[in-house]
C-alpha cells in the first residue's frame, strides 16, 4: 500500500498534468487556418502532426552535424553516427526489444513488411505452404504476401471478421495448420479502429508450431498504446514514424535477433557489407545487413525526438484523451439520421469510419474541407474489407491526443451542413 502511494506521488511529481490547450501549442500546424477556418485535423491515422521538438531536432541535425555516418573519422560524422545509433537504442527501449541489433530502420512499415516477405519469406516459404493474414489488413500487409505466395506457389489464408469488425478467432484456429509458415496481422485496424488480441493470436500460432513466424503490423498501434514486443512474443513487429508524431520516410522493422541473423539481405550495396572483393562479398552484422546505402539520419533523429515527446505526454494521458474523444464523437454521430458507423468492436481506438445513406463519402470529405475539417474518404487501402462490408468506401475520422471536443463539435456541425447540402 505504502509503495503504491509513493508511486502515485512520484507520477504526479514527474508527469505534467495533461492540458490539451497547452499540448496543442507544441504543434505549430494546429494553429493554422484553412480557407478562413481553423484547421480541424482528423486524419491522424494517415499521418500525425509533428511537435516543435521533432521539427527542431531535424533542423538542428542539418544546422550543426549533418554528415554521412559510420565511415567518417571527423567530428560531425561521429556526432551524426552517434545520433543515428542513439535513435536505435531509443526505439529498442520504446518497444522493449532485447537489443538495438533487433532494430532495422526502413522507409516505413510498408518497406518493413516487404523486407520480411522478400528475405524471410523467400527463404522459408515453399510450395504448398500457407500464410495467414486477415480480412481487415491494409494493402501493405496483403500484397507482399500475395506476391510471395505467387512466387512460391504457396497459399494465402484469410481470417474473416464479424459484422462488428472483430477477427473471428475460432476461424483463425481452424486456419492454423502444419503448413502454416507465417501469420501476419495488424494490431489495430486503420479503417475500423479494432484492437486485435495480438498476444493471443501469437500464442495460438506458437502453440500450433513454434516455428511459425508471426508478423505484427503495428502502424496504427505504436502511438496509441505501450508496445512490448517481448511480452507480445512477436517475431517481427513493424511501424512507421510518421504516424507517431515523427518525420515521414522512416520506419522500424523489429525482428528477433535469431531470425534476422539467419535471413539473407534484402537490398545490397554500401554500409551493409563487411568486405567486398570480386571473388565475393561478406555481409555486415545485423541490423546493418539490412540497411544498404546511406540511411535516413534526419528521420532517425526526428523519430528519437518523437519517442521522447510521447514519453513526456505518457501513454496513460494519450489513452485517456483519445478514448474520451472517441466516445464523444461516436455519441454525436449516432444521433445523425441515416449515419452508420462501420466497425463497432468492443475493443477499439482512435478511428471512426462511417457512411451516410445515399451519400458518397468523397462528397462528404470535399464539403468538410470547405469548413477546414480534414478527414479521409474512400477505401483506406483496405479494399477487401470494404467488400466484406459491401460498401464502396467510408468517411474516416481519426483522433490524436491533441484533438479537442470543440474540434469534434466543429466537425459534427460541418457534417450536418454537408449532409443537408448533399441530400
Amino acid at each position, binding site marked *: 500500500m505504502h509503495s503504491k502511494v509513493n508511486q502515485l506521488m512520484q507520477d504526479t511529481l514527474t508527469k505534467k498534468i495533461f492540458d490539451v490547450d497547452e499540448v496543442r501549442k507544441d504543434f505549430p500546424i494546429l494553429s493554422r487556418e484553412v*480557407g478562413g477556418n481553423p484547421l480541424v485535423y482528423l486524419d491522424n491515422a494517415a499521418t500525425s502532426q509533428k511537435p516543435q521538438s521533432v521539427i527542431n531536432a531535424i533542423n538542428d541535425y542539418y544546422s550543426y552535424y549533418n554528415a554521412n555516418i559510420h565511415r567518417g573519422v571527423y567530428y560531425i560524422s561521429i556526432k551524426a553516427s552517434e545520433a543515428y545509433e542513439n535513435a536505435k537504442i531509443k526505439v529498442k527501449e520504446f518497444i522493449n526489444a532485447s537489443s538495438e541489433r533487433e532494430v532495422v530502420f526502413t522507409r516505413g512499415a510498408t518497406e518493413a513488411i516487404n523486407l520480411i516477405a522478400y528475405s524471410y519469406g523467400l527463404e522459408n516459404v515453399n510450395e504448398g505452404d500457407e500464410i495467414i493474414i486477415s480480412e481487415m489488413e491494409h494493402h501493405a500487409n496483403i500484397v507482399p504476401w500475395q506476391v510471395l505466395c505467387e512466387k512460391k506457389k504457396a497459399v494465402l489464408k484469410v481470417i474473416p471478421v464479424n459484422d462488428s469488425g472483430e477477427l473471428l478467432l475460432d476461424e483463425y484456429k481452424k486456419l492454423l495448420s502444419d503448413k502454416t509458415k507465417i501469420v501476419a496481422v495488424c494490431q489495430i485496424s486503420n479503417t475500423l479502429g479494432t484492437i486485435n488480441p495480438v498476444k493471443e493470436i501469437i500464442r495460438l500460432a506458437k502453440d500450433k508450431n513454434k516455428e511459425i513466424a508471426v508478423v505484427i503490423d503495428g502502424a496504427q498501434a505504436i502511438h496509441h498504446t505501450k508496445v512490448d514486443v517481448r511480452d507480445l512474443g512477436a517475431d517481427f513487429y513493424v511501424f512507421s514514424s510518421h504516424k507517431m508524431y515523427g518525420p515521414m520516410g522512416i520506419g522500424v522493422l523489429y525482428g528477433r535477433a535469431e531470425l534476422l541473423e539467419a535471413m539473407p539481405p534484402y537490398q545490397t550495396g554500401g554500409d551493409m557489407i563487411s568486405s567486398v572483393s570480386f571473388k565475393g562479398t561478406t555481409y555486415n552484422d545485423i541490423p546493418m545487413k539490412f540497411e544498404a546505402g546511406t540511411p535516413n539520419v534526419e528521420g532517425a533523429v526526428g523519430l528519437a525526438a518523437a519517442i521522447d515527446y510521447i514519453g513526456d505526454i505518457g501513454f496513460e494521458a494519450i489513452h485517456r484523451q483519445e478514448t474520451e474523444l472517441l466516445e464523444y464523437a461516436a455519441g454525436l454521430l449516432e444521433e445523425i439520421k441515416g449515419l452508420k458507423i462501420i466497425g463497432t468492436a468492443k475493443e477499439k481506438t482512435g478511428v471512426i469510419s462511417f457512411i451516410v445513406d445515399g451519400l*458518397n463519402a468523397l*462528397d462528404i470529405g*470535399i464539403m468538410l474541407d470547405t*469548413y477546414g475539417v480534414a478527414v479521409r474518404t*474512400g477505401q483506406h487501402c483496405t479494399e477487401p474489407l470494404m467488400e466484406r462490408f459491401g460498401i464502396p468506401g467510408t468517411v474516416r475520422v481519426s483522433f490524436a491526443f491533441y484533438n479537442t471536443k470543440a474540434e469534434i463539435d466543429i466537425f459534427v456541425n460541418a457534417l450536418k451542413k454537408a449532409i443537408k447540402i448533399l441530400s
Partner: protein
Amino acid sequence: MRIDEFIMEKTIQEIEDEIVDEFGFFESWQDKYEYIIELGKKLNGYPEDKQTNDHKVKGCQSSVWLVTDDEDGRIIFKADSDSTIVKGLIALLIRVLNRRTPDEILDAKLDFIAKTGLQQHLAQTRANGLAAMIKQMKMYALAYKAKQLN
C-alpha cells in the same frame, strides 16, 4: 449560316468565360460547391445499362462512367457518377465540350478550371478524378479523329 454554326453558337472559349463569371459570383467555396452539387443533381440521361466497368473512367475515388456518340462529326458525351460533386464537375466539362468536333475538343485549353480556382481545390488530388475525366474525353476525341481520317 452553316448547320454546325447554328448548333453551337458559342465558342468553347465563350462558354469557359461564362463559367468563370458564374463562379466569380459566389464568395465562399461552400457556395461554389453548392452550385456544383446542383449541377450534379441535374445531370441526367446516362443509360443505366451502361454503368459497367467497360465505361468506367479509371483513376477516380468515386465511380465515373462515360459514353460517347457522334452526330455530324461532333461528339456527344453522356456521363454519370455516384458522387454528386463529381457529377457536377462532369456537367461543367460536358457543357464546354459537348457537340464539338474532335479538333475543338483536342485544342480546348480548359483554363476555366484554373480560373475558377477548381484547379487549386480539386486538381491536385487524384481522388476526384477530374484529370482522369478530361484525359478520357480527349482520348475519345482522338479516337473519333482517327476514325474520321480513315
